[in-house]
């Protein structure tokens, strides 16, 4: 689903770049707040002074758990990058690959998971020419923000509804692909590259099948990650 340069109008690409930047800034801020705490040493060093000056001067540093969070974001991004390389053939001459948005947010949480997918998309665009640089913002919005951040809330809602981890994860993964495909179609349609009325049904038809594979792969990888105790029920960021 990586949009190449040329499919989307530069004006729309610019708008999407701003949207992506805003969403990533929000996620970065969320993660930063979760992984840092005021430096204890500094507060103790100034114990004789007024409490207000201590707290205002105390700088935030990475916590032990925060370090693990950053390592986990890296490993999830690496895993999704590798899994995205797996192109599986689908009927009538097309192929699909994982997006991994649902997987990332279920394992890491909405903000950290979105960052992991965004990192994958950025590396793919910069070093592998997979997805145009001009439309990098759009690709981040489609796959990381819609396929990740938004998908997390769909997953939470589905989990409440179905009360099943596996079913809600698989359905959320399918939804993430369909929503990303819809967003991609709308971006192409608005750019005047091709009529939305033709692109949207074609995209949804193909990705309904790819989404099923996304669901299966997401559940399979979640199972493996749970088995090796990488995925657990800790609080998600």
């Amino acid at each position, binding site marked *: *689903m*990586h*949009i*190449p*340069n*040329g*499919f989307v109008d530069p004006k729309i690409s610019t708008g999407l770049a701003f949207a992506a930047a805003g969403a990533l800034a929000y996620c970065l801020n969320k993660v930063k707040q979760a992984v840092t705490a005021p*430096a*204890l*040493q*500094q507060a103790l060093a100034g114990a004789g002074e007024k409490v207000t000056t201590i707290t205002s001067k105390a700088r935030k*540093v*990475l916590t032990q758990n925060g*370090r693990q969070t*950053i*390592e986990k*974001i*890296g*490993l999830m*991004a*690496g*895993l999704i*990058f*590798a*899994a995205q*390389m*797996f*192109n*599986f*053939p*689908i009927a009538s*001459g*097309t*192929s*699909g*690959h994982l997006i991994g948005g649902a997987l990332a947010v279920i394992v890491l949480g909405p903000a950290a998971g979105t960052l992991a997918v965004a*990192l*994958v998309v950025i*590396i*793919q665009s*910069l*070093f*592998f*020419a*997979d997805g*145009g640089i001009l439309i990098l913002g759009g690709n981040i919005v489609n796959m990381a923000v819609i396929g990740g951040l938004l998908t997390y809330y769909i997953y939470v809602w589905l989990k409440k509804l179905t009360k099943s981890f596996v079913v809600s994860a698989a359905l959320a993964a399918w939804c993430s692909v369909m929503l990303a495909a819809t967003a991609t179609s709308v971006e*192409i349609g608005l750019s005047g*590259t*091709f009529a939305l009325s033709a*692109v949207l049904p*074609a*995209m949804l038809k*193909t*990705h309904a099948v*790819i989404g099923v594979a996304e669901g299966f792969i997401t559940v399979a990888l979640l199972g*493996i*990650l749970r088995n*090796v*105790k*990488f995925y657990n029920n800790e609080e998600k960021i």
Partner: protein
Amino acid sequence: MKVYLKVILLIIVIAVSASFFASSHPDGLEWVAEKLGFIETAKESSSIMTDYTMPFIQHAGISTAVAGLAGVGLILGLLWGVKLFFTKLNPNHPARI
């Protein structure tokens, strides 16, 4: 740490096996673009490892595997760098004092 090693092993297994069994068919979006006839509006872009191949390795599978592992290495290296920057390289961090 053992958990991380297992995940890294999983990543390597996936990256290498994906390199040798990848389908050459176009992906969903490309296929739709071809079928509807707007694929020619795409501008070819190139980079160091275009199409997941290492330019100096001839064998297709090995080339993709090396490129894939390089990509994984880039991602892990970047995040480990961030972690180092905020811990070992940060003079205010309790772990350093």
